[in-house]
């Protein structure tokens, strides 16, 4: 029994200390990791969608609550007015797993600014064609009220032959982002104003 007690004590202690030190490092680095993640994963997509340097946009980050879970939204401002939104969603059912997409929306014209693929694990050469601009450009200029559908379902998007799962996941993801935008437009505007006000107070003080 003593032996078991010793085992438990030593292993438990080592585990505890390990966890403690990990948690410490984690709290120190969490923010920076988040920033880096935004910069490297979302940055390039944001720059393309909103046509502004990533560092300017990354500060404008919101989280909105929708019936389908929380979503991350970035916005761009030009001389105080909000002109573009970038909504990130997860498209379920890709061949290699879920596909993270980002949809750009022009709040003034209610037209789509485009679509970017943030993360996917599709088969190289087949499913990965969703990254190609020829495919993605089909989103450009579409009306924001949707719906986004494949041509054979009455929509405007041409699917990629041989990559049905991947195409469907992307469409599903972008449709989700659109409905979130349509349903939470007001919520987004409120949030932007709040954060602007917060920024202002920070600047003033």
């Amino acid at each position, binding site marked *: 029994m003593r032996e078991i007690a010793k085992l438990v004590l030593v292993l438990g*202690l080592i585990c505890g200390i390990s*966890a403690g030190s990990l948690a410490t490092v984690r709290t120190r680095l969490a923010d920076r990791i988040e920033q880096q993640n935004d910069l490297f994963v979302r940055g390039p997509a944001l720059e393309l969608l909103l046509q502004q340097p990533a560092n300017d946009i990354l500060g404008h980050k919101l989280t909105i609550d929708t019936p389908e879970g929380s979503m991350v939204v970035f916005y761009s401002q030009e001389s105080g007015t909000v002109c573009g939104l970038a909504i990130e969603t997860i498209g379920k059912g890709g061949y290699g797993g879920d596909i993270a997409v980002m949809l750009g929306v022009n709040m003034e014209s209610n037209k789509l600014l485009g679509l970017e693929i943030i993360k996917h694990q599709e088969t190289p050469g087949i499913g990965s064609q969703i990254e190609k601009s020829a495919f993605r450009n089909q989103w450009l200029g579409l009306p924001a009220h949707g719906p986004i559908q494949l041509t054979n379902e009455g929509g405007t998007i041409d699917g990629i032959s041989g990559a049905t799962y991947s195409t469907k996941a992307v469409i599903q993801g972008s449709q989700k982002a659109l409905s979130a935008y349509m349903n939470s437009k007001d919520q987004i505007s409120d949030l932007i104003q709040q954060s602007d006000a917060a920024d202002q107070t920070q600047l003033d003080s």
Partner: protein
Amino acid sequence: MLTPILVMSGVGTIAAVGLGIAAKVFHVDEDPRIQHVLDLLPGANCGGCGYAGCASCAEALVDGSAPANICVVGGLETASEIAGYLGLGDVNIEPEIAAPDCSGGNRASKKYIYSGFDDCRAAMQHYRGPVECDHGCIGLGTCVQACQFGAIKMGSEGLPIFNPERCVGCGECVRACPKGIISIISEKTKILHWNRYTECLSPCRQKCPAQINIPKYIRFIREGKYAEALLTIKERNPLPLVCGRVCPEPCALACRRSIGDEPVAINYLKRFVADWEMASGKHLPVPISHSTGKKVAIVGSGPGGLSAAYFLRRLGHEVEIFEQKPELGGMLRYGIPEYRLPKEILDWEIQGILDLGIKVTKNVEFGKDFTLELLKAEGFDTVILAVGAWAEHELKIEGADLEGVYSGINFLEKFQEETLPTAGKSVVVIGGGNTAMDAARSSLRLGSKKVTIVYRRSRDEMPANPAEIVAAEEENIEFAFLNAPNRILGESGKVTGLEVLSMKLGEPDKDGRRRPVVIEGSERVIECDTVIQAIGQFPDLKFNNEPMNLALKETRWHTIDAEEDTLQTNVPEVFTAGDCFTGPGLAVEAIAAGRYVARSVHYYMTEGEIPPIEGQQRDFIYGSLHDSIMGVNTTPKIHESVICLEDRLGTFKEVEGTIDEKDAQYESKRCLDCGVFCYTKEPIELKMEKAS
């Protein structure tokens, strides 16, 4: 902050509790040493040892079924750590390396021509008919592929060449070779090995009692590697200087070259390398195994005793020799005269053996000064009796007690001890053995004018070495064949003559020897003042009775009775070897017996029982009907330089000299490098002509 710590500690605690309980519930009683040995092993799990993994190897090591050096990756360091931990001392730790068993080369055709009836059945019945070698190397180099250590190369002759520095003794090549001509041997196995029928044994190697690998050392001589040649001899024979001088060369009788030519002068070559070592002034180092802590007492320091001491010492045992006489050497010293074997050479050779770390106690007699009980009390595990055959048969004839009558050994011994005032003017030696020859030739050198050898059979039946008889004849010793001594005549207590009866040879007895029959009324007297009886010897076993009561069994020839296959007597810890077991024999036979008994004693002391030698070669393996050697030019045999007759008489100068290096090279090239069924056809280019 607290959550992660609690979660991790929780998982850790559950894991530890689980493991702890599992260890208790599924506890297996295991020798704790297994784990330790496992830690000592390198953990390569390579399977080179033959076990399924390091864990099973460790188990085998602990239960003793595997030797400490089994791991081929760990090498000697690991082996000694394991041996040290398991308390094996350093037993069994010896590098083992692979060696080829086929000398290959430009071989003779494997079938031999049968020149009898043109009939297959007849040919088959005669000896074994045409035979094909089933040993020879095929030469495609599977062993080279099998070796993971790059230790084998294919030589230009299509035979594998082994690099001992790279070989780790893993045995993959042995397993790969379909012909079984590669063996893994250590120095120890070399000593413990005896010829087997399954091996490729050249005729000379089969005939040599000591089983020296003769073609191998001749090959080394040819290549100029004299040290290697000598060490090859010393694997089997610790007394090459002695044997190079006194051995009657049974091997040369079997030499295949003698079928169409003179045999190779094997002994001259042996003497050449032995003398080469002595001329260098230093004894070549021979490997000695790690100490086993076992002690052996050897009674007697003749060739048998010395050889047993040498091999047991090399096997790592502690050896002490007990000698009754003031000097070591037994018959070599007291029986062989100076002109055949100079004492300084014998001294040098014996010193080399003793320098291996053998203790010596001189001037002590077994049964009188020390007993078996005393030896046991002093911690000796075994005793080897190598007391020789010193007692002599004496003629029960009239006048045998007169002054001037000696026995042969007694005469030679007295001379050696320098207690013999002088030999007579005219000497008669009775007997036809080597002792008789030695006594006769020694008397001549002591100043006798006339020496006669009286022998009751003819010259052909004389048991002495033919070379000795020839030398005696050269020295003008008279031979009275077919004469039997009848009585010794004397005047005032001194010998004046020997009355002999003429004999004729009768019908052969059951041994095939024709018994001499007395011719009635043929008495004649040979005038002489000294009579030396040399009619036979037997072991002096008086220690067997009072006061020790050893109760050793004796045969009816008064030799010690022992198991023929082990040389163990009826007293388990007492072994025997040499003349006291076989009756008077050759020095080389005693040397062979010394190694044989060393093997038995080694196994007896380390393993408790002596394993039989499987398929031990006892009889000559007849390769085939072999009445000619084809494609071999005849070349004359080299002859040793012999000093002239004038120099021989009156002095004890050594009669025969050593051959020089050039002659040794020439002679070594005459060797055909035989296997059982093959020989090298015109093998070695004779670049160096004898005349040049």
